[in-house]
Structures are given as structure tokens and as C-alpha cells.
């Protein structure tokens, strides 16, 4: 089943605030071998928050996505400022576009990541490729 084109332009509710604790940031820095100065999170750390927003999209029963057929096609971040320890972050995902290529749905998403004050921190753009069901 193809994903409904009515999805384009839809914005999902903001994700539950996520606190970037020192422990979580340090764990992420260690897992990626990144230098940690005690406050600044690695550049790809916001994926943790964006991932929650993408999961909500993929698990929405109205959207019609089968999780096991989704592949991460590309990822891009633009930063207003780096994530720092203590930030309480929330992601608001919008479906920017939807294309069908060779039976696959190409879903372009944009997650605006903001801090507790609602000020922008970074924008995470992700393309999700939803492969067509194999015809047996």
C-alpha cells in the first residue's frame, strides 16, 4: 500500500521534551569516539530527538508505513547552535514532500528541534525510503 499523498504538509505534534543530560551526552560522545568538553554534544546527537519524531510518524496507523520496510535515505542537519548539556529539546516533524519511485515512497521530513523556551537549536532533514511490498 502506498503512503497517502495527503500526508504532504502535515505537521505532527512536538515530541515529549528530552533532557540532554551530561550522562547521555557523554555516552553518545564515547560511543562515537568524539571529544567531549563537558558541555557540547556531538553534531549528530540531535538524531536522538529527531528519531523520536520520525518513529511517531512511522508508527502512526493512519500513515500506513510498515517499519521493517523503511530505509534511511539521507540526513542533513543545520544548526542555530550546538546542543549543550542541560538542554530540554523537542522535535516537531513536518512532511515536506512525498514521491513515488519504482513502487517506493520517498518521504522527505523536516524536524525543527527547539529548546525549552521554544528557541530553534537545529533542523534535522531526513529522507525515509519506504520500499514496496515484494510481490511473491
Amino acid at each position, binding site marked *: 500500500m502506498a503512503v497517502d499523498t495527503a500526508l504532504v504538509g502535515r505537521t505532527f505534534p512536538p515530541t515529549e521534551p528530552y533532557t540532554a543530560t551530561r550522562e*547521555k551526552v557523554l*555516552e*553518545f560522545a*564515547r*560511543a*562515537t*569516539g*568524539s*571529544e*567531549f*568538553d563537558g558541555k*557540547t*554534544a*556531538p*553534531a*549528530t546527537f540531535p*538524531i*536522538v530527538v529527531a*528519531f523520536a519524531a520520525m518513529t511517531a510518524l512511522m508508527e502512526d496507523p493512519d500513515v500506513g508505513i510498515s517499519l*521493517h520496510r523503511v*530505509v*534511511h*535515505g*539521507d*540526513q*542533513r*542537519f*543545520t*544548526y542555530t547552535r*550546538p546542543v*549543550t548539556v542541560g538542554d530540554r529539546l523537542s522535535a516537531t516533524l513536518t512532511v515536506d514532500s512525498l514521491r513515488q519511485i519504482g513502487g517506493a515512497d520517498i518521504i522527505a521530513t523536516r524536524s525543527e528541534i527547539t529548546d525549552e523556551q521554544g528557541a530553534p537549536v537545529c533542523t534535522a*532533514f531526513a529522507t525515509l525510503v519506504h520500499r514496496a511490498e515484494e510481490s511473491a
Partner: protein
Amino acid sequence: MSDLVAGETLPTQTYRVTRSDLVRYAGASGDFNPIHWSDRVATTVGLPGVIAHGMFTMALAARALDTWAGAPGLVRELGCKFTKPVVVPDDDEGVEVQVAGTVKNLTEDGVHIALEVTCGGEKVLGMPKAVLARG
């Protein structure tokens, strides 16, 4: 940062990736997709074996950027396509991922860098590029 010039080749960074790194990244990122730790599941979906998270490989590119910038927190933009999986064998050696970079130009936005991320001589990320803040 201010000493980077257009056309400059940045020192290539080499990172060894083992299964244990993938398990650790799964825990840190919350991405527990079994294709990143179970050969059984990976081969069932047609992969040659367990593959690294695309976001883990991207994180290695970000790590190289921090090294070139001389400090964390200076990346203004980072993007790539996930074109080829990094297959990580279940042994102690794992695989090597290399991150190379070239300074394309310097604009008001910052220092534009074209990256090349390879494993076994093959590009694993498509058109990886970044912008670093100017010092």
C-alpha cells in the same frame, strides 16, 4: 579554524569499527534495529551481514570535522546520503572507515568542506558535506 584555505586537503582520519562499537552506539542513540547487531536478521533482509548504523558512520564524519576544527560545537551544517552499507564482521579487527576532507571555499556562512567517507576503498556516504563556523 581561521587558517583553513580553499583547496586545502585535510588530514584523513581513520577509525576502526567493531561489533562492540555498534552495540554501544545502539545503546547511546536508542536505535536498536537488529540489522546492526544480529547476523540472522541482517541476512534475512538480504544484507551480507551486520551493518553499521548509517548515523554511526555520519557521526564518524562529524568526529573528523571536530578534529579539523580543533574543538567540538563548530559544525553549522552536515549532510549526506546513505549509499552503501558498512559491513562489520564478527571478529576483533572489525573494519576501517576513512574520512577525508577538502576545503571547498570560505563564505560568510563558514568553511565549506567536501568529505569522502570510505570503507575498503569504496564510498559509503553519498555527497557528504559540511559547513564549519569561521573562527
